[in-house]
């Protein structure tokens, strides 16, 4: 069980009364402490640096407005993280879609009897060994970025943020069933892209 935040285990708690009261100096300290980490999050969702910075600004404005009601049950860092993800998702909803590869082209294909058509051998090197290579993490990030937004975002929310299906569905305004299907397709597509990359 995660320990509740206290002044001893969470530096933000010391400032919490001032933050709730709208104290500008305390808020500036909050921004200085968390902005870099949250910018990494908004970048992860949006890719574009300018949009990521705009989403970060949206997130801090939302946090400032929400602080008087922040109950302090979760860590402030966790609360801010969630707000930053939401701000990035809001920006994603309004932006023009990128040129995206069709998800169907990244899903397995089957013959008429339901047997999978295997185009190439799967990689055999263990994932741990692959990840020890300096360039593998960059490769995986690049491949995740190639997924269509609808699928990439579900993958980020479920596999990276570790939200459950119901939370993910709620954040995206879709049914839990649709969230499950999208996650499975996103994982399949990432597997496919990795196979193409690793078998070169």
């Amino acid at each position, binding site marked *: 069980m995660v320990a509740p935040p206290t002044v001893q285990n969470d530096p933000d708690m010391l400032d919490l009364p001032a933050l709730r009261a709208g104290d500008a100096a305390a808020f500036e300290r909050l921004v200085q402490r968390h902005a*870099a980490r949250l910018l*990494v999050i908004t970048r992860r969702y949006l890719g574009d640096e300018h949009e990521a910075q705009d989403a970060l*600004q949206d997130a801090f404005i939302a946090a400032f407005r929400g602080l008087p009601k922040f109950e302090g049950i979760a860590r402030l860092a966790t609360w801010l993280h969630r707000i930053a993800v939401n701000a990035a998702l809001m920006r994603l909803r309004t932006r023009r879609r990128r040129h995206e590869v069709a998800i169907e082209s990244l899903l397995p294909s089957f013959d008429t009897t339901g047997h999978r058509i295997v185009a190439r051998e799967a*990689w055999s090197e263990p*994932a741990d060994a692959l990840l020890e290579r300096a360039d593998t993490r960059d490769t995986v990030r690049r491949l995740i970025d190639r997924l269509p937004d609808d699928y990439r975002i579900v993958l980020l929310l479920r596999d990276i943020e570790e939200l459950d299906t119901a939370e993910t569905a709620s954040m995206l305004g879709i049914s839990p069933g649709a969230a*499950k299907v999208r996650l*499975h397709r996103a994982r399949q597509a990432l597997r496919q892209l*990795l196979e193409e990359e690793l078998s070169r």
Partner: protein
Amino acid sequence: MTELTCRELIDFLDDYRSGSLPAERRASFDAHLAGCGHCRDYLRTYEDAIRMGRQALGSGDESAPPEVPKALVNAILNAVRKPPH
């Protein structure tokens, strides 16, 4: 027990992995995997892909900015100082 196809196995792979399939259905997945090397490879690499995604993005080693641009910090602070309309 009806014989499972690769398509059925892959379509319901997450249910199999999460242990949410009924016992009889799970047994048919196990039997298919025991006899199908392609599907064993698929399951292994599917799980590898999940792990690699988690490691690549979840380990906090994405290229973090050395510092957030001062202009951005100032824009944030100015935005919250504005009185609400």
